[in-house]
């Protein structure tokens, strides 16, 4: 978000806090009305206008996903549901619509996943957007309090109690902090993208002259590995690797 967008957003929020609903909410409401009236293209325009402000809200991405889904664009729908999921990983509606949209696709993602990946996904869905950070805070602050008591209290009984509490809480703090660090590392290295073209051929190199390795279709989620000019190297869910034109995919 650049500084101008920040200023605009700040002004909107400041003005919004005075009234019951700000201009962003009014625009959101107008988009919802357009959707309800069957004007899905109009609704899409309004949702996109909200995103232009730089506001990152899962509700906007979710409703935008619905608007483009109704227009028969599963690739765009999946892209927006994925963006909503990043902001609200435990949102059941987002998960349902994402899964429903994927069922409409030509290409199926590999079903078999490693149990560690499943466990990680389950953890993220359990804690949501910031739950793990809050959890760490809720354990860490009492731990620090216990450490402080252990250091500072003169009464021997209280000191022993504080020492015991410190040990117990440290056992919890270490994994909570570790999971937060792991999540940060995974999310910063995630380079997921969605195929936007109805059909695109994956080639062995970043050029039209290279032989075709596979054909994939709109809506498939891929991982971007490298970029070279107008081409990106992607990894498919089933492990296939190839080059696609940059314009055929959009980063989540």
């Amino acid at each position, binding site marked *: 978000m650049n500084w101008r967008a920040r200023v605009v957003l700040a002004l909107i929020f400041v003005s919004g806090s005075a009234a019951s609903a700000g201009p962003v909410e009014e625009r959101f409401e107008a988009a919802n009305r357009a959707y309800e009236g069957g004007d899905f293209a109009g609704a899409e325009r309004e949702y996109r206008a909200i995103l232009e402000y730089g506001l990152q809200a899962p*509700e906007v991405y*979710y*409703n935008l996903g619905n608007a483009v889904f109704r227009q028969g664009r599963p690739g765009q729908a999946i892209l927006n549901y994925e963006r909503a999921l990043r902001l609200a990983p435990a949102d059941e509606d987002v998960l349902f619509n994402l899964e429903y949209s994927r069922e409409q696709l030509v290409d199926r993602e590999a079903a078999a996943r490693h149990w560690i990946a499943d466990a990680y996904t389950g953890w993220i869905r359990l804690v949501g957007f*910031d739950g793990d950070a*809050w959890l760490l805070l809720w354990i860490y602050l009492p731990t620090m309090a216990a450490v402080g008591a252990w250091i500072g209290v003169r009464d021997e009984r209280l000191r022993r109690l504080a020492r015991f509490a410190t040990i117990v809480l440290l056992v919890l703090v270490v994994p909570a902090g570790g999971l937060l660090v792991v999540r940060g590392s995974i999310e910063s290295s995630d380079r997921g993208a969605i195929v936007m073209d109805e059909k695109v051929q994956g080639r062995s190199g970043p050029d039209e002259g290279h032989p075709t390795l596979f054909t994939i279709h709109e809506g498939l989620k891929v991982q971007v590995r490298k970029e070279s000019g107008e081409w990106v190297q992607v990894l498919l869910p089933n492990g296939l690797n190839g080059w696609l034109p940059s314009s055929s995919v959009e980063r989540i």
Partner: protein
Amino acid sequence: MSGRLHQLSLAALTAVALSVCAALAADAPTVSAEVDRKRIGTEDTLVLTVRIEGDGAKRVGAPTLADMDDFRVLRGPSVSSQFQWVNGRSRSFRTFTYVLQPLRQGALEIPEVILKVFGGGSVQTAPIEVEVVEGTVAERRRRTPRQGLTGPRQQSSSSNAKVNIEAELDRKSAFVGQQVTVVYRVYTQLDITGLELVNAPSYPGFWVEELKIDPNPLGRRAVREGESYIEYTVLKKALFPTRAGRLEIPALRFSLGVRGTSRDPFESLFFGSGQTVYRKSPPLALEVQPLPEEGRPASFSGAVGHYRLNVSPDRQEARVNDAISLRVRVHGEGNLRPVGEPAFPQMPDFKAYDPKVDEKIRIEGGRLKGSKTWDYVLLPLAPGSQEIPSIEFSYFDPDSARYQVLRSTPIRVQVERGELQVGTTVAGVQPREVRELRTDIRHLRPTPEQLMDRSRMLRQRAGFVAALAVPATANLVLMLAVWRRETRQAAPGELRRRRAARWARRALHHAAAAAKHSSAGFFEAVSKALRQYVADKLDRSAAGLTIREIENALSSAGVGAMDCGLVRSCLEACDRAQFAPSAARPAARAELVQQARSAVDNLEARL
């Protein structure tokens, strides 16, 4: 009487014997092939006659026609045999007749016909050349007397008379599924005695229904290209295109028995006036347009034409599990055969069984009409006022080129509770799982009071980092503060006592490290460390402290005699060695350090 019978028997035996002898003595058979004419048109046919003549004709098998590239065998062979007894000798004739159709024009050749002879060998005919021209040449009359259609009487001679077949479509373009009628008509100047199709007609890309025509049609006078003909409708088909594009209707080949009226009485008497001619209808083409995608209802199942929809239950009051019959009937004009079942609505409170389908198709005024009925059996599952929702049927109207949607009126059925049965909780109602009727994405998120920006996560915010750093820093500060406080508040003697052991161990460690290389100063260092330790522990000055004073002071402080003795022996050993340092071996030095450490440890536990 018996004498006459005996004579007859004798004559018969003689005849048989003679014939056997004649057969044995027979000459080799001769075979020949001939055609009825050497010049024909592509629309004409040719009669090929293979004749086997000679006394040994019976020994010759049926002819085998080689594969012909230029002709197709339409009929044959028809076989005829003759046996003659002339001047005491028998002669056999066998003929095989084929009707051939030329496949192209030009100078064509009928290849040799091969005939196998029983007993070995074969005979063959000579090839025959035939000239084939485009169209037709004047027919040669053959004798095929039949009753049939009568040509115009003013045609006195058949030599130049014409017979044609024409085909006509009632429209030049149509939509997929729309009825198109093709009519085949004969235009003749001769009497038609019979008519049949040579090949079964095929219409690729069409669904075909036969339309009935009058089996004894009345001719209609018609003038074509200035000549007078009699026109007969001989075949009518209703065609329904099944795909879009330009569809070809192939030519049909008819075989017509014709009879002309000749002025020549001799010709009429000896050759008759009947013959068979072959005619082809011209091929036709139809432009078929696809059904438009725009405006196509979801319920469209392929019906094209004009239809009506009736939905009726047999009753509107029932009990739970008491079957109701619901009839859905679509009727009108068009081809109903391929039309699928109307979309049956989901009814969670009814169990619907597969329908019984009945189809009644009829032809009225050359158009295909009829009705299709689906009879459903519905079982009410729950009591109350239940509704059978509107049933939708849609069709494409080719006249307006638009889809039409028919909807039935919803029907309300009053369902009463049934008899109480074992396994039911409410009278007559069997508990069941709620069924999902269809799936869809979940609905929009309503407008919240305020849309929260989530562009940064909590862990990325400065406040979070501060929340982690500040308590840790505070604890460090607290730790320092506590240490400083303790340091300041403690009495000097007390601090000295607390640190005595640490300092003594450090001094012993340094002494031991130095003793590895040289013994100079070692014993003095050990002695000093022990004396300083005792002085620190007892909060006294180490200067001038004798061994005896140390022992007394330790005893006074409650230290046992053994520990006091250990301290004394260490100090005495140091004093002794100071005067003869070269006598002390490295092993003895190490042992002394160990003893000094043990003395410190023991005193630390007591003091």
